[in-house]
């Protein structure tokens, strides 16, 4: 092989790869999804293929990859989004946290969570006086981990408590929010928050054994459901009751182009695919949302 042949080979290989990446194959729907939502989307695809065996749906990932559908985890302005499910966020720490007893002794109110997760100087004055002493000491010892990527749920968590992502204390990670749980495993004296799909073992339907939820100051019956560590009880609780301390947000698909294949797939998720949401740790759409999303899809046609 001479040098000319070598470079020719490389050039041909690059051209073929690029061509493959950009080529549009009719009948194939590409879906871009992050790790946190991947299980749910896989379940939908599996369920949809069971009734539409001829359809081809492929999951793609990567920063420069375009897809027909992209899963987003918050409400978007100025783009077409079809909302297909909901998720909930809970504050969490590691069971190996040396301060676990102190954390679990408390019933965390909204102000406590704000105090722990966000910059302290912005708290109401009377609350600062109230939390002097032990609670502030706990705050000083705990590191907060949050995400910095565009897909991170940190912004949702912050806005639920009336703050912005820039107000979150502590350290940031880059990467999927799933890795926030790795971060608190490495740095034991820390807390974070995450979606139920990452917090619970989807097979055993129980809270991951290395994690402990921060006990929330909620009604006794609600507290029991959360303490049970059972994913299904938790999902049912959050779906049926409005709990101020638990952020709940929609997930949805944005699309580059809209055609009949995509329309059918999305309609199926909204009508029939909801049955898979719980299995993947997600909440169902509300009935109102189902109606409104179907109506919007009809308008797209």
């Amino acid at each position: 092989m001479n040098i000319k042949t070598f470079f020719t080979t490389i050039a041909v290989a690059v051209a073929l790869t690029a061509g493959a990446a950009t080529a549009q194959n009719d009948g194939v729907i590409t879906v871009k999804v992050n790790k946190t939502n991947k299980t749910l989307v896989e379940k939908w695809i599996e369920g949809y293929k069971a009734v539409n065996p001829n359809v081809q749906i492929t999951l793609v990932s990567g920063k420069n990859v375009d897809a027909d559908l992209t899963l987003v985890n918050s409400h978007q302005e100025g783009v077409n989004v079809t909302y297909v499910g909901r998720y909930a966020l809970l504050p969490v720490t590691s069971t190996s946290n040396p301060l676990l007893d102190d954390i679990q002794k408390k019933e965390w109110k909204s102000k406590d969570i704000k105090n722990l997760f966000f910059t302290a100087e912005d708290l109401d004055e009377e609350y600062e006086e109230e939390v002097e002493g032990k609670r502030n000491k706990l705050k000083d010892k705990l590191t907060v981990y949050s995400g910095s990527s565009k897909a991170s749920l940190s912004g949702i968590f912050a806005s639920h408590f009336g703050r912005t992502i820039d107000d979150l204390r502590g350290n940031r990670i880059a990467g999927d929010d799933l890795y926030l749980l790795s971060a608190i495993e490495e740095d034991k004296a820390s807390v974070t928050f995450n979606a139920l799909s990452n917090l619970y073992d989807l097979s055993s339907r129980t809270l991951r054994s290395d994690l402990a939820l921060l006990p929330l100051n909620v009604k006794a019956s609600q507290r029991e459901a959360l303490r049970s560590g059972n994913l299904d009880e938790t999902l049912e609780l959050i779906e049926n009751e409005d709990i101020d301390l638990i952020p709940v947000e929609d997930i949805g698909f944005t699309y580059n182009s809209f055609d009949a294949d995509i329309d059918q797939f999305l309609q199926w998720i909204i009508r029939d695919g909801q049955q898979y949401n719980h299995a993947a740790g997600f909440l169902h759409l509300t009935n109102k949302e189902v109606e409104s999303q179907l109506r919007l899809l009809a308008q797209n046609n």
Partner: protein
Amino acid sequence: MIKERLFLAAALTVASTFAAWAQTVQGTITDAASGESIIGATVKYGDGKGVTTDIDGHFSIDVKSLPVKLNISFTGYKSQTVNVYDDEEDINVKLTEKRSYLDDVVVVGYGTQSRTQLTGSVATVKAEVFENSTAATLDGALSGQVAGLNVTASSGQPGADSNIRIRGGNSVNASNEPLYVVDGFIYFKDANGSGTGLGAIESSLNPLATINPSDIESIEVLKDVSATAIYGSRGANGVILITTKKGKLGEKKANISYGYNLGFSNVTKKLDLMNASEWAQLQKTYFGNKGGYTNDEIATLGKGTDWQDEVLRTALQQQHELSINGGTEKSRYAFSANYTDQDGIVLNSGFQRYNFHINTEWELQKNIKFGVNTTYGRSKQTGLTTTEEQVFNSSPFSAGITNSFVYALLTPPVVPVYKTDGSYNFTNPYEYAYFAIGEHAVNAVYDLKESVAENVNNYLLSNLWATYKLNDFTLKAAVGLNSEKLTQNYFSGANTSLGLATQGIGGTGNRQTDTWQQEYTLTYNKDINDNHHVDALAGYTKQNTTSTYSSIRTNHFTNETLKQYNLGDGANIYVPQTGIVESTLNSIIARVNYTLLDRYNATATFRADHSSRFSKNHRWGYFPSLGLSWNVDKESFLAGARNLDYLKVRLTGGVVGNQEISDYAFTTSYSTGSYAGSSSYSKQNAVNDDLKWETTASYNFGADLGLYGGRLNFVLDLYYKKTSDLLLDVPMGFAAGVTSQIQNVGNVENKGIEFAVNGTLLKRRHLNWTASANIAHNKNKITDMGTTDNVIQGFDSQQILRKGEALGSFYGLQFAGIVQQGEDVSKLPTINGATPKAGDIKYIDANNDNKIDGNDRQILGSIQPKLTYGFSTQLQYREFDASLTFAGSYGAKLYNALGRRLELTGDSYNVLSTVNNSWTPEQGGNSLPLASNTRPFSYIDSRYVQSASYLKLRNLTIGYRPRLPKTFPVGIRIYATATNLFTLTPYKGYDPEVSSGTDSGAYPSARTFTFGVTFSL
């Protein structure tokens, strides 16, 4: 074959090397507040060297494997650690600025510097101050903001200038105004540039009116010599650096805002003048009752005409403001347009301006940037005519009738404005001295409404610059032009005070002033081993100014319809005034900043100036300075100091100069005129081959202290300045052929102390409350006057230059009361050879020679305040905001010439109602003598040198930003502002702020209420 194997081996080696760096992490670093890319931020992990972000804030770093912990840092920002677990997305890290005061980057002459490295005394005023103020010019908003910076309005006339003094005045006849530098362009109100030779127009346009306050990003006030020495011959009075807003690279493509405000003004204080009944009674009792009033008639006269009310009004004002700014990765732009229309509270006065400003910047190539800053606009000031030029009938000006507004105050309240048929009344039987011919007298209301006194300035300030960066060196070239065309229009018709004697007079004049500036600098910026930082600058600048002027006046009009636009109708033509002046300043500049261990800073500055304003042998001036500072908080012995944010001490010394005198003052010059129908020349100036710079040696010790994470900041400065070789207008003998000449004579010293504090009182999520306060004391003293001591100045001889006293000292007799009935007068000093009698005024016999004369005059205080102070506070609570600014001055004196005029009784003019308390045999009295139309002396006395201390609520603003749905495309803020809401002062005239120190009927100040709305997209 061998070749192929060798190549494969090499390829494998390269591949294995890349395999060792398995992944590339990419991302962008931005400013959390502005969203702008941060260039030069360091991204590293472990012990690796790391990478820096490029011009787009982007980085790319190779790592062996994930996860990895990246540390991101940049000067002035809080460092951040990011654990990277996957590379599916680019990392977007937002860095938050450190809130420490010392981390601010400060604009200094010809560059910027971190405050932590600064050695000089530099105060910063940020954009919010100008945004909260509705003042049309920046000086109105600066008052009370900076310790040691004293702003005194020349009058309340809209668009009028202010005196700004930084650490007192240094000079007598050269300018005491600071130097302004607008985006690098040196902008100075030329001593020659204020008029067109026309005269008769009382007010001059504020040179700062060319800058729209809303365009200002920040103002840096350079106070000590380490900061000002880079401006050498022009730095003695301090330097004010104005930086205009630049486009910002943000989430939005463009930021668009439009604001409108509407307001009204009225006079802050009215003088209490006699009404018709009181005045008629005064006339009947003391001055022959020219009106022939009986007691019954006097009782029915009542208030009569309140001439003060007739010439004052509630004035409206409005302002439109459009601003568009934005940027891309390679370019930035900021554009603004402003229209201001402000009526004055005196009839027929006001100020209008339109102003366009654009600030652009392009990155042409990786290392080359190019920018253009341009301001274009037009200001028009409509004001009062002044009688200063009128010399007939022993001069109404020297008799205290300085303008038509004052004439209104003096017009007797028994004289109506209008006749019964609604036409103007030109009959005033009491006027026989100045403004009446036969039975035809002047009417002040007509005078104000129909006279023209306009200043119109069309201006262009444009600066082009380019930089080329080569490693640690940056080359910069800048060329700028400031072109101003001032037009003055003046017309007083035959029925007005100025036109009465000449059957109308009018004129027009133009002055075109072009200043070109070239600037070439080379900077070197290097960090060495993390222990040394060097920042060096060398350069050459040149500024040359050409100013041409012409004016013409005519009188005796047959038709006044077109006023100054038909000067050809005037039968008599005055000698036209034309001229040209040119000046050039060539300068070499150099500065080295060195920082060791982030703790010890030194700044050495040198400037050599060659000015055309001085004689050939003295044109070069050399101005060195040295500044040292020590960041004490970085020392290990303070490492454990809890709550200490920073502590810095500063020590500076050096020499700066002053060249702001008129051009050609060093040489012989002649002025032209007309004599017996032919042209004539008269000597205007005599040669002075020794004329040179006025130099100020200055020393400063300062300390900066920050506590509680920057929530509480203190700045303390002590300084001493000695100005030598004063540029003084020295009286000359007959042999010189001129009455005076500018010479380098005498010394002045200023010493003082300044203290400023600012703090965040409350910072909560929905509540932010900040406050700042400053106070300064300056003591000014003439320490040498050469052989020309005791120079008396002013039209009432009211001021004196005397060794040991402050500049602007008042000089007059000390009032000692009124001689009472039965008082033993035998021991009283005589006045004009006579022993005072009951009802006469008494003065202190200062030299104890038992007679009162000019030798008994004493220093009665000066225009120099002992203390100046300011306080401001800003509060934000949820959607509401409020700001409050107080400014004050203590210890200065002001000559109330208007008050003196209005307490001089006679048979022509109205007086203050205080004259009702004049001494009479029946009621006594100890402030005013028995009513009389003569004064024992022309000298002023201490009653009219009054305290000019004041505390003013300069600005009160309350704003509200309604919370709108996120989908609503427009942000809205509505606000209300009150300016000059109240003034606490013992001063008896209209307003204690009169920059000249003599209140001879200055345009009264206004209280303004403004309501506005701003829309932002």
